[in-house]
């Protein structure tokens, strides 16, 4: 009842693999997030955006999953960014140190532009 409240989907925009995350990012999200990451990586993605939306609940177990993704991103020479986080969760990402390894954008448009600027 309480364990499956994250919807994950994948799309591509201007050379950026976008993983949309709608819902709770907790320990129950591990399989879905890792599976989405593996899918875009097997498709050759070098620029990946985790696009958060309507995420009222991201806990330390969810953050641990994201740290695991960062580990893989570094290993695979990819670039990772996030968008759509509330001010509160942007603060949490800075607090735990994730912001050192992931570019944080306010929204998807800004993130796609950011990727393009970095590649130019």
């Amino acid at each position, binding site marked *: 009842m309480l364990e499956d409240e994250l919807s994950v989907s994948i799309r591509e925009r201007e050379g950026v693999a976008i993983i949309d995350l709608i819902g709770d990012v907790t320990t129950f999200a591990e399989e879905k997030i890792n599976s989405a990451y593996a899918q875009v990586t097997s498709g050759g993605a070098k620029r990946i955006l985790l696009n958060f939306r309507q995420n009222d609940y991201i806990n330390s177990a969810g953050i641990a999953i994201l740290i695991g993704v960062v580990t893989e991103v570094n290993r695979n020479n990819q670039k990772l960014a996030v968008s759509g986080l509330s001010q509160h969760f942007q603060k949490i990402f800075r607090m735990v140190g994730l912001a050192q*390894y992931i570019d944080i954008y306010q929204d998807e448009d800004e993130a796609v532009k950011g990727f393009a600027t970095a590649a130019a």
Partner: protein
Amino acid sequence: MSTPAQQPSIELYFPSELGYEKVARDAVAAFARRVGFEQERIEDLKTALGEACINAIEHGNAQAPGLRIAVSCVCEDERLTVEIQDDGLKHYNGHHVPVPIESKLRGLAPLRGMGLMMISALVDEAGFTDSPTGGNVFRLALYRRRPVAAQ
């Protein structure tokens, strides 16, 4: 946690299963809103409380089925105090040195284990306290406005 009648307070009990901490977060957030806390502080409280409940479920109650977690919450003037109690199947005092993210990324430390650090950073007071009835009791408190040193 007994409280004088004039102090607003709530108590709730929920199954010791991951996911139910959301019920506690929502209930305590509604209480904090009712007693006039600002949304930014409520967001801090929700995240800290969720982490404390997860610790109680995973560590204090060792994820054993059939147990419950008790949460009590009282507002005294400028201060909101929340206590989270488990059955103490495992004594858990959370004494460990926080591991920097660099160590986690290098595979030198588990990816999990950030809950207490997050709690300490988000609320004004946090720590384990004595329980007359056994079990682990974690208490956290926050003020309507953060003390200047904590901002």
